[in-house]
């Protein structure tokens, strides 16, 4: 019965979140220390939505975790994995999405993209952030970080787009030491400026998801720009409409990983990239980066209608036919060419045409305007499928699933009733 089936489903889900909770609670204790590795792990455990901002900053993570902690704390501490925290830290990176997604329905249940979580990278980022905070104070832009950060972000929004894609790459490439930060920083600046116009359209759509992000992120580090550039490159690859992507690629040749990471970088990981973006020093970049988090989510939307725009009349027709072509390839038990499958579709079209014509003739012969199962039976008999040895019921039993068999074959039930009624 369906009810029974549904019941066991929520049970494992409950178990999983409780497990996460316990681990998260243990990790939370370390948060105040601002220890990057333990702090990050619980953050990663955070909800799927928050996972995008996990890398943004330690503060952000804490903020995110705060409200969530309360409702979750009520869950019974499932398993104490505190001892294996360190080991689970790496695990959490890999698997936090899944338990998170299980607890939260909807968007959070997105399939976790392959996140080669770099604990070392995160740690490095955090260290860089801490380091960057010092030099950032010198920059003139820092005062902008306060209230006007939003406005600054607006200006820099166009940049964020290319950066978003790259940030993911940056994350992946974090383990590799980035070369000359100054040079990359300049390159990043150039790119952000150049990519401004391109991103503006995207930025307009993006809102400011986390106003706190801007000034949290206003701790760009010198090493960050290299990451930013990488992220930009990945971003460009991700966002084909962004024309600026090419400019940055030439600047940063030392990051070979970006092209591949770009393809692999999922959009919702872009939020993490934003974290990377914010780290880079220049405030415009920072502002751009801060606006990143809303960007990736919103940037995705425009691409969606583009893909689903054209709905030709053939599409549902082909979709229906594809069912039979799949069956064909299954029955044939041999590899097939694509042209052969198209040929099968054409044959099926023709056959259905013949079928309808024949049914019309049979119904007209019986003086009816409705095609009844008797007409179908007559057709099958004429086709040689039904013989004196093989009856329709035999064929129905052989080829159709139980539900349809019940529909087609009259069966006697208790109380002197027959279904389907004849």
């Amino acid at each position, binding site marked *: 019965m369906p009810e029974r089936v549904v019941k066991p489903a929520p049970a494992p889900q409950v178990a999983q979140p409780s497990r996460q909770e316990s681990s998260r609670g243990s990790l939370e204790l370390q948060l105040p220390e601002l220890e990057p590795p333990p702090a990050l792990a619980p953050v990663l455990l955070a909800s799927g939505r928050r996972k995008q901002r996990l890398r943004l900053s330690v503060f952000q993570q804490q903020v995110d975790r705060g409200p969530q902690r309360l409702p979750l704390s009520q869950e019974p501490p499932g398993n104490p994995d505190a001892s294996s925290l360190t080991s689970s830290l790496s695990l959490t990176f890999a698997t936090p999405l899944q338990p998170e997604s299980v607890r939260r329905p909807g968007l959070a249940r997105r399939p976790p993209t392959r996140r080669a979580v770099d604990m070392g990278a995160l740690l490095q980022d955090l260290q860089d952030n801490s380091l960057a905070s010092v030099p950032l104070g010198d920059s003139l832009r820092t005062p902008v970080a306060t209230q006007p950060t939003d406005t600054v972000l607006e200006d820099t929004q166009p940049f964020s787009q290319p950066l978003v894609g790259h940030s993911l790459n940056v994350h992946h490439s974090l383990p590799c030491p980035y070369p000359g930060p100054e040079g990359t920083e300049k390159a990043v600046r150039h790119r952000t400026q150049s990519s401004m116009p391109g991103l503006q359209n995207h930025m307009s759509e993006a809102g400011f998801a986390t106003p706190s992000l801007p000034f949290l992120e206003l701790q760009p580090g010198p090493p960050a720009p290299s990451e930013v550039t990488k992220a930009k490159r990945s971003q460009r690859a991700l966002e084909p409409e962004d024309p600026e992507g090419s400019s940055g690629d030439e600047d940063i040749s030392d990051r070979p990983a970006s092209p591949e990471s770009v393809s692999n970088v999922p959009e919702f990981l872009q939020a993490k990239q934003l974290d990377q973006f914010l780290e880079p020093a220049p405030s415009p970049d920072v502002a751009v980066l801060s606006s990143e988090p809303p960007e990736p989510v919103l940037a995705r939307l425009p691409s969606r209608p583009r893909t689903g725009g054209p709905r030709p009349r053939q599409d549902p027709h082909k979709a229906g036919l594809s069912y039979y072509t799949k069956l064909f390839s299954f029955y044939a038990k041999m590899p097939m060419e694509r042209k052969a499958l198209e040929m099968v579709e054409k044959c099926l079209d023709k056959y259905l045409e013949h079928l*309808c014509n024949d049914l019309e003739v049979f119904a007209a012969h019986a003086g009816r305007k409705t095609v009844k199962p008797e007409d179908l039976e007559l057709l099958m008999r004429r086709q040689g499928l039904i013989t004196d040895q093989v009856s329709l019921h035999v064929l129905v039993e052989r080829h159709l699933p139980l539900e349809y068999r019940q529909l087609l074959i009259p069966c006697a039930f208790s109380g002197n009733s027959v279904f389907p009624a004849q």
Partner: protein
Amino acid sequence: MPRRWVPERGMAVSATVFQRKQIKRKAPRGFLRRVFKRQKPHLRLETRGDVLIHLNCLLFIHRLAEEARINTCENKCGIIKKDHVLAAAKVILKKSRG
């Protein structure tokens, strides 16, 4: 959960039962109905008629696949090619003229 009329063995009177069966190899009934309507808009199709049409298509595809496989093996090919399918279709369509 969609309610489906399912005859309960214990009852004589029809009863609706909450059932959410995930039928494997579901018949594309909507697709078949649409095709029939498009071809013969002046005709009507009965409830169980489209399931039988689906059965008919299944058997047709089955025969077509068999014939195509035979053709391919005769030509000592490892892959079913377009012309194999074409020749098979000619034979089967002629056979199932009705």
